[in-house]
């Protein structure tokens, strides 16, 4: 690498370091950028600033305990990560969560997805120079976080799911408050469109910027809204339904632009889909137990188990190898953000350095999930 740097200094190109403390990388991500004037020649992501070896720690935790660390990975969809861990364990010991627990899990997962997309919407405005949307998105996010706090006890790192069900039954006010919140959020979507979507300056910064072709999206393993904006239908909720998503009516949002504007529109449309899923389910939560009976010490049979879920950023997978004991022999998390990050050098090549901020914002990276 040293030789390359000397060579570049000769030919007039130069290197700048974006991060690890840059506000638009949303965390401690370090991007080394080779530049020719303003044009990006090459990007090299440099990871490891927030590595905590979550996977290794999980090898010493029991199957009830190990999901709590996944909340700290993709902290914006922590509930969905916990869900993946619980589902993997349930798959292995061949039990199913009770119908009530499943419905509550879906509801909380969609609330989390909504809250995550609202934070993304707030941050994209901030990244591209619009400060006002941040406050308006947080107003609705506060509602959702309050509801989640009332039922789960925590706002962000809930750890509400255990194998076989959920920790506590839902709060008595849960249904009423969710309905009120959905009414308010639905009426505020127009405000979002007025503030950002219709804004010409904002559109000009996104349209035609950062094109990701469907071929590249597949070969880099992109998932979630990033890949769906390139015309790839990859929603795990539709393809490999879990928790009873197959009994719900919702559309998979696929667009074919492939640029930042497409990614923006996919996420905006996904928020409306989440609201519709919640509205279908909120009056139809089945009665009964919220927790299936499990043994005091959960032991997995020998073998390998894999479970995929759709988080707010894409396809999250939990891979467990068991040797028959009460802790995993090996635990691996397939995080959507690492794959999405690996596509960024390809997306950003040839575009201007100012557009890199828009690309980073629309791919919506969460750095602790990349490093783990």
């Amino acid at each position, binding site marked *: 690498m040293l030789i390359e740097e000397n060579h570049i200094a000769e030919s007039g190109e130069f290197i700048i370091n974006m991060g690890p403390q840059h506000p638009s990388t949303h965390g401690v991500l370090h991007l080394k950028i080779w530049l020719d004037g303003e044009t990006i020649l090459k990007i090299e992501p440099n990871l490891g600033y927030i590595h905590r070896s979550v996977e290794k720690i999980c090898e010493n935790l029991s199957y009830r305990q190990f999901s*709590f660390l996944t909340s700290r990975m993709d902290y914006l969809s922590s509930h969905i990560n916990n869900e993946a861990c619980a589902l993997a364990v349930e798959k292995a010991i061949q039990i199913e969560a009770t119908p009530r627990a499943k419905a509550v899990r879906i509801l909380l997962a969609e609330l989390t997805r909504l809250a995550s997309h609202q934070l993304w919407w707030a941050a994209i405005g901030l990244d591209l120079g619009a400060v006002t949307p941040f406050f308006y998105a947080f107003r609705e996010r506060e509602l959702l976080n309050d509801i989640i706090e009332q039922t789960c006890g925590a706002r962000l790192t809930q750890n509400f799911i255990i194998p076989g069900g959920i920790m506590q039954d839902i*709060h008595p006010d849960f249904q009423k408050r969710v309905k009120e919140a959905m009414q308010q959020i639905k009426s505020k979507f127009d405000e979002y469109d007025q*503030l950002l979507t219709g804004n010409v300056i904002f559109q000009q910064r996104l349209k035609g910027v950062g094109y990701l072709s469907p071929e590249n999206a597949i070969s880099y393993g992109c998932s979630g809204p990033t890949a769906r904006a390139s015309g790839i239908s990859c929603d795990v909720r539709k393809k490999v339904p879990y928790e009873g998503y197959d009994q719900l009516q919702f559309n998979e949002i696929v667009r074919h632009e492939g640029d930042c504007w497409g990614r923006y529109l996919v996420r905006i449309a996904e928020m409306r889909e989440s609201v519709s899923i919640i509205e279908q389910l909120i009056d139809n939560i089945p009665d009964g137990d919220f927790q299936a009976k499990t043994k005091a010490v959960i032991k997995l049979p020998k073998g390998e188990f894999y479970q995929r879920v759709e988080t707010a950023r894409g396809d999250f997978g939990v891979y467990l190898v068991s040797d028959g004991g009460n802790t995993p022999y090996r635990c691996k998390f397939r995080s959507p953000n690492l794959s999405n990050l690996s596509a960024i050098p390809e997306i950003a090549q040839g575009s201007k350095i100012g557009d890199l901020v828009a690309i980073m914002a629309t791919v919506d990276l969460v750095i602790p999930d990349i490093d783990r």
Partner: protein
Amino acid sequence: MEIFAANQHDKYIIDNRHDDFRLAFLKETILFLKDYFGSIFTSVKSLLTGMKLTGYYFVHPKEIVTEEYPNNREKLKMNERFRGEVIMPHDDKNEHRCTGCQSCEIACPNGSIKIVTKMEVQPDGKKKKQLDTWVYHFDMCTLCNMCVHACPSDAIVMGQNFEHSVYDKKQLKKILNKPDSKLMSGVEE
């Protein structure tokens, strides 16, 4: 002669093209100006739509957009399930419900609980395991609720205090059972 003829021909074509060019240029200019002013108009319009919204909230200060840090401690009521810290409730007779079974210690994923037990002679002469100290390392706790969920006798609950900053890390090591506290009667049946 041939060269001359060719030149004549060329000149004719160029002249013709020139007229075409002029017309096309005029058309393009009009289109460009229309586009140019049109885009200015739409941009200003889109900006004004946004400004209208923020203006609405400016003249309606009662519709709160932001939230304040909770300074109203007297009136403030947190959600009953809020996870602030682990506490051990004691009743008026200074009795708690912890039997010292160590379920919470086993359930804790990061070892922030340490339970010390002692053997105590009961009135009927038998020796019995009793709780001595319930040591809680709050600096390691992630408030995951696993200990409260695991407790068979509901001895510990989540407290509602949300401000824990101290100057010395040692103050975060707490002993939850009060001095000289005893096990509540009827818990172990």
